[in-house]
């Protein structure tokens, strides 16, 4: 069967630096795969190539067997590739509810309606509120997004991604910069989505316990190259991976510079 997502020799070069180096990977449907690797390994760049934020120097991404070379990031989102951002990227001067509502609006294809009041689209508001409840943000629905804490913004990111209801979710470090108390909530949200069983999830994370807990498979990037791809157990036992990466793993203060 054709995998839902596949890359072929995916490569990007920034001047002399090869950030992603001939990566071949396949993603089975309804599967949760984590991407790990040290800082600067090219994880976020890899995401940007998949979501269309960056154009590859060579190679291509295939979604359900179809080449995405000509598809812009907007088209990819509409096809079913939704992503969250590592650096929180929301609408700062709108309320939390408004942020999610915009995402739901996109999903419901309400794009060029110019006459009716936006509040008359009840279903959209309801759906947005439902998602806010899911990510435990409902009590902040009327707050301006600039007033949220970092962790709350991350939750909002996830709610907006879920609102798009895409087949594939690309989660770029959903727990980055969160306090320890907030992490379990996000973990629960991801688990809930996974257990529903209708989404394919690609997750970049640093928190190893969380990855081992959630993943069906793990892929390891190192210096832009695909070092290994396999079940959590296989990865943990893989010697190359151990040497290259897992030594410095439990440093909680790791933040990726991209």
């Amino acid at each position, binding site marked *: 069967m054709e995998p839902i997502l596949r890359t072929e020799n995916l490569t990007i070069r920034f001047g002399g630096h090869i950030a992603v180096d001939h990566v071949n990977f396949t993603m089975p449907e309804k599967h949760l795969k984590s991407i790990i690797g040290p800082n600067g390994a090219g994880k976020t760049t890899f995401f940007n190539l998949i979501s269309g934020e960056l154009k590859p120097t060579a190679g291509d991404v295939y979604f359900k067997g179809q080449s995405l070379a000509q598809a812009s*990031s*907007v088209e990819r989102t509409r096809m079913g590739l939704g992503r969250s951002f590592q650096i929180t990227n929301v609408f700062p001067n709108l309320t939390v509810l408004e942020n999610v509502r*915009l995402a739901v609006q*996109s999903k419901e294809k309400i*794009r060029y309606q*110019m006459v009716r009041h*936006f509040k008359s689209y009840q279903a959209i508001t309801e759906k947005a509120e439902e998602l806010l409840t899911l990510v435990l943000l409902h009590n902040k629905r009327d707050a301006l997004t600039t007033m949220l804490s970092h962790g709350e913004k991350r939750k909002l990111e996830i709610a907006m991604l879920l609102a798009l209801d895409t087949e594939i979710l690309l989660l770029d470090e959903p727990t980055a910069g969160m306090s320890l108390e907030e992490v379990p909530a996000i973990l629960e949200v991801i688990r809930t989505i996974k257990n529903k069983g209708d989404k394919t999830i690609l997750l970049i994370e640093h928190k190893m316990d969380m990855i081992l807990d959630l993943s069906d498979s793990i892929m390891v990037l190192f210096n832009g190259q695909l070092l290994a791809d396999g079940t959590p157990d296989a990865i943990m036992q893989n010697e190359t991976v151990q040497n290259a990466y897992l030594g410095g793993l439990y440093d909680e203060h790791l933040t990726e510079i991209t």
Partner: protein
Amino acid sequence: MMKKLTWKHLSFVLMLAILVLLPFVNDSRTLIILLTQIFIFGILAMSYDILLGYTGIVSFGHAMFFGIGAYTTAVMLKQVDTTLSIFLLSIVVGMFLAGIVSFVVGLLTLRLKSHFFAMLTLAFSGLFLVVAEKWRSITYGNDGFTFRAPEMFKDRITFYFFVLACLVVVFIALYRFVQSPTGRILIAVRENEQRTKSLGFQTLHYKVIASIIAGTVASLAGSLYALSLRFVNTSVMTMDITLDALLMTIIGGVGTLVGPLLGAAVIEYAQHTLSGMARDYPIFERWIIFFGILYILAVIFFPKGIIGSIRFIISNWRRKLKAKRKTPPALSHEKEGFE
């Protein structure tokens, strides 16, 4: 929510009633002309706010749409006939032309990043200015030409009501537009264009829509302006008109529709009185200087404009009131602060 809505409606109706009744109470020619001028520039400033305040586009070429409207009306009334129907038709034709021009210019320029876009709009507007100067057979060059108004609008008060009606229609239409789903997306583009794209919205389409709407409404303002003077020259295409619209919007409050209206009132009134005072105090012949000072002060002290500042004060006051009403037990309050 409901309460707030009726409060808004009430003040709208009250304001409208005052403006409708005013000519019956005080029919001073100067006042009527000044108010008509305020309405016209209010329409222009509101259209500019769709670009600046709602979509976050800074355009330096808005005068070209104003000019298109002004010249279309003037030329049609001069060359064709001076009837009411020709005037109404000229408004429609002007809006249509402005719509096409803003569509084409928008498609060509809106892909660019903000400041490049701003420069290019300036260039396009310059192009139209040159056309108005050189196409002498119908524009009579720099000096422009006078024309006769339709019989009905020779009466200043009738014209006042006509412009007021236009203003109300435009206000309601634009108000509905910005509250529609598309209007929400415009705000999203203003806030974070890249993010709007990643939600799956073609932001270019929305920017072009905003520029078409702003362009057609500006053309309506231009048509009314030309008729109010019964004269047109190249000054309607110049940067001054764009700057007026820009400053009215900023002083009144960007991102609100009432703001630009208020800004138009303040600036038109100030221009009127300051230039009037020049008769007694020669220094006011340089009233433009006082304007400069006013702008600088406004931007420093009221960056959100009049309406934005008022809203800020009200929301602050509400928050205080709320906090007073539910004073939580000291302990839980402390805990909140601790977290």
